[in-house]
């Protein structure tokens, strides 16, 4: 985590060949953009495209392989896997987006306030982040599931509690760096309030790296949500969620391996895509690669 500190000193990207190459958008990035577009489409319109109701069971057709009627086959209760994947896309990706947005807003606010005001607030925020940033969401989720009972509220709280910290750390580093610039000094001189300075001067300059981080955090949050649901601590059956589907399919993988491979593939593909986008954006805005 020494990386973010270096980010604070990275400065504006140079104009050398190296910098040009780093900024050039590669073929794999366009592929990632394409897949991301397709995924967003499925998240928005997937349930409309679903050929069957995701919860409709048909025990007579349980564990059947792909067919014209059921393109990806059926699960152990005879539910249509394609329809469940589409319903799950909305849930997994939708919750991840919501959690990233909420933790992003809180983390960025705390980081900016700490960076501008310094003093006690700054050490409080920074010490908290330093101490707990390595805390895995799975462990927080376990503890919260014991307090709140396993379910979506416990899941989202756990993810939120861990996801805000990288935002706060980066926002803090950026705020300190940007505050040293002359236009911020000028704004202070003409008597702008702290709120105005943060909104009109700090945030626009910090937006790029923060968006790049949001992509990387999206991947992290998606994996945490699916992981907790996999353990039975998040979305509960019969809810169609990718991690929960994976867990439900495990006992039957000998008879129908696709049941495991399809949600597994969806989770990995989404994570890879979002991470690739985040890294490209990160290079553009001098966000470190690690």
């Amino acid at each position, binding site marked *: 985590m020494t990386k973010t500190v270096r980010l604070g000193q990275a400065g504006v990207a140079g104009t050398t060949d190296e910098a040009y190459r780093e900024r050039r958008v590669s073929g794999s990035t366009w592929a990632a953009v394409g897949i991301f577009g397709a995924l967003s489409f499925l998240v928005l319109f997937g349930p409309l495209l679903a050929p069957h109701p995701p919860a409709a069971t048909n025990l007579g057709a349980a564990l059947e392989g792909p067919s014209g009627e059921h393109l990806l086959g059926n699960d152990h209760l005879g539910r249509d896997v394609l329809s469940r994947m589409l319903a799950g896309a909305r849930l997994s990706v939708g919750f991840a987006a919501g959690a990233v947005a909420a933790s992003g807003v809180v983390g960025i606010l705390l980081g900016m306030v700490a960076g501008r005001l310094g003093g006690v607030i700054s050490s409080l925020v920074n*010490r908290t982040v330093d101490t707990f940033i390595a805390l895995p969401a799975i462990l927080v989720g376990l503890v919260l599931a014991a307090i709140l009972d396993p379910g979506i509220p416990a899941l989202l709280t756990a993810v939120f509690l861990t996801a805000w910290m990288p935002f706060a750390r980066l926002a803090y580093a950026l705020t300190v760096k940007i505050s040293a610039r002359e236009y911020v000094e000028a704004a202070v001189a003409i008597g702008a309030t702290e709120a105005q300075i943060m909104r009109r001067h700090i945030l626009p300059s910090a937006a790029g790296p923060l968006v790049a981080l949001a992509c990387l955090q999206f991947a992290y949050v998606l994996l945490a949500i699916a992981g907790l649901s996999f353990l039975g601590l998040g979305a509960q059956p019969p809810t169609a969620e990718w991690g929960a589907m994976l867990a439900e399919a495990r006992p039957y*993988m000998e008879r129908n391996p696709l049941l495991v491979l399809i949600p597994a593939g969806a989770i990995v593909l989404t994570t890879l895509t979002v991470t690739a986008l985040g890294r490209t954006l990160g290079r553009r805005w001098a966000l470190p690669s690690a």
Partner: protein
Amino acid sequence: MLLKRLALAPVLFFLASVLAFIFPRLTGVDPTQAILRARLSERAPDPATVRALEAELGTDRSIVVRYGIWMRDLFRGDLGNSYVDRADVAEKLLSGLSVTASLLFLALGFGLSVGVSLGTIAAAKKGWADRVVTGVSQAGISVPEYVLGPVLVLVAAVWLGILPPSGWQGPSNLVLPALTLAAPITALSAQLTRAEVSDALAHPSINTAKAKGVSGRSVLWRHALPNALTSVVAVVGLWVASLFGGAVIVEVIFDVPGLGRVIYNAVIANDLPVIQGGLVLAVALAVVVNLVSDLLQAAIDPRMRTG
């Protein structure tokens, strides 16, 4: 820097102990009822049993007194007994910890040695070797344990039939869980090593070494790599923390009786003493891991000792 962190450790431990102590209250679970439910399942408890239990738990005394007693017992290594099977919590957790520790050491050892080697080769060779290592490690980071685990079981146990799918009987049971845990470590350390060795190779001191006639291989492994390793060591502590999260998933998938699964089972069964003890142990472990990684860094990198 080091002293500051040392001073923080007891504060953290105190906060964690308070959290662990009040934990049963946060859950809103009545301990008496929880015990009765766990031991009698659906049968109706008789009032005499309920009263006896309440006296045994000391639910009538003030909360500060109870915290004091709880802490005293804690330092004596007495974490109480499981609600579910009345087993000694400390013993239960420690036997789980020994299993998890062997798993973590194996995964960390394998992941770091493979990852650092691959990263160094990628930085030195560039070209296709670099592209393969970068691509594979990128993918490795995006594959969570709960995806890799079932897929490994499918391939190695179901299709090839060369390894047991789950359980904890012999060394062959270690392979799949350790590989699953090692994958992200391998990928992360390969990426980091590659970046750091590239940086180190660009340093003027490398030119000096070359000018003095040091061989290319020696420049890479004796001069560039040690410099790169300081930043790998710096983050290993963080990786160990995330390994504990991964261990929960891996132990559930492969039916390994480790610490993660002990706590997971306790959460599912509302077994409060085990969760409490687990919380305390987890924080103690985190503090120790952080401390060791700080000391290790100071040992490797002279610049850390003064700051």
